[in-house]
């Protein structure tokens, strides 16, 4: 672990991997809650945690490498369930990367337990880890100019859900109606660092038409064609 100075009042704490970053983040939150650490922002990322607006950056920077960081506890807190229709346009590509039949993608993805490692890209966009390492996928060679709100997507080791329509280069495997970000709600962001998540396959039943789609209509593979 090393603490790199960032300007006058911030430190970038670098650790060796994402698991250590999540453990460090939990410890920093604990220390801030007890009042022993005074800092405005604690921003976890892939293998760093940024401390911005620190009261005593030099003291904290000198002491931090000597801290004992407990491993991330396996907590009994509730797991947030996000229903997903595994109907994304990149399902076949993802299946090919994984070397599995297309229908297996939903089963593998919904069997994993995820944790929000960090947020970024857009308000309420979480980078979720939890898939075994062999299921990493590259970003798409050409990003899409429009990814619909609620798209469930994969890139590298991460799963993410687009909180609103935006350009994006992740592989789209499904979609959800769960509202990830609503600034009129408390909390505004459903996914914040540390939250545990499970994706639940939401198979439209044959006898209850879902939303505005007639049950006889063929599922659209064009994500921009979905009405919201």
């Amino acid at each position, binding site marked *: 672990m090393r603490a790199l100075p960032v300007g006058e009042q911030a430190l970038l704490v670098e650790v060796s991997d994402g698991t250590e970053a999540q453990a460090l983040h939990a410890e920093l939150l604990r220390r801030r809650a007890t009042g022993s650490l005074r800092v405005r*922002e604690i921003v976890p990322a892939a293998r*760093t945690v940024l401390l911005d607006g620190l009261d005593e950056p030099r003291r904290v920077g000198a002491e931090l490498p000597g801290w004992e960081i407990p491993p991330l506890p396996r907590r009994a807190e509730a797991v947030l369930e996000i229903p997903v229709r595994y109907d994304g346009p990149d399902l076949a590509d993802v299946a090919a990367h994984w070397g599995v039949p297309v229908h297996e993608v939903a089963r593998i993805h919904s069997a994993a337990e995820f944790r929000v490692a960090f947020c970024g890209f857009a308000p*309420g966009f979480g980078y979720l880890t939890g898939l075994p390492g062999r299921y990493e996928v590259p970003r798409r060679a050409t990003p899409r100019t429009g990814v619909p709100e609620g798209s469930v997507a994969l890139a590298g080791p991460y799963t993410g859900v687009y909180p609103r329509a935006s350009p994006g280069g992740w592989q789209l495997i499904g979609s959800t109606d769960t509202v990830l970000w609503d600034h009129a709600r408390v909390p505004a962001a459903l996914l914040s660092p540390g939250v545990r998540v499970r994706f639940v396959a939401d198979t439209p039943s044959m006898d209850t038409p879902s939303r505005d789609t007639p049950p006889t209509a063929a599922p659209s593979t064009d994500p921009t064609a979905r009405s919201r």
Partner: protein
Amino acid sequence: MTDRAFAVVRAGALTTVQDLGRPGHAHLGVPRSGALDPPAARLVNRLVGNPPDAAALETTLDGCAVRPRRTVTVAVGGAPCPVTVDGRPAPWGAPVRVPAGALLNVGSAVSGVRCYVAFDGGVAVDPVLGSRSTDLLSGLGPPPLADGAVLPLGRPGAAHARVDTVPQPAPPRELVLRVALGPRADWFTAAALNTLTTRTYTVSSASNRIGLRTEGPPLERRFEGELPSEGMVLGAVQVPPDGRPVVFLADHPTTGGYPVVAVVRESDLASAAQARPGTPVRFVGAGRR
């Protein structure tokens, strides 16, 4: 319909509502946003008797024109510009009474980029996460002003302005930004670090509220490849693949994957926000306090 409002007659190139932003939510991917020139925003609020964090208008180069529905006290500051009320010249950098229905015109900046327009009572659009600021990166807060829009004003407080007029710094002819190297200075060659702190860059016309982009000698990296996403601070000097430094301003992304070679002192960022395209920029090593 309440008369505590104003109508937008001329929105200008880009006029947004800004207060002092929404710090404290970076871990959710929410930029801090807020006025790019905070001293100017605080000052115009003080001139009309508002608290320093009241919401004001931030214009870009060509000002804006508004018609208040009640008599208001306004103050225009930041970039120097002509101010008129129903066509008659009014003072800049001082409280101005605008009668109900009169047209307040904030003209094009004579120098600098961004004017701030405070109204007594403040602009009272709904706050988002505790701030009324327009965040152009993530779309939080009210949209930029549009011709014909009507924006609400708050109730003026009991406080009276304690100042009539105040000196404000002139926008710089040359922008000098004091930097502390790091956190990723080691991603660049020694020659690149020397280039950064000895050569002159210019402000690029592609600059915006997200970042001050520069043109000048590219900074050469020691390593290629991507840095895993990491947290970004206000004032970070990020170096994209073209090698030209970008100084992160208020609407900057909260995480990023290009290396940050240095960080500009926060107190120097207000002048960065007022530097026009073409202005020479020098990054000078400030060392560490």
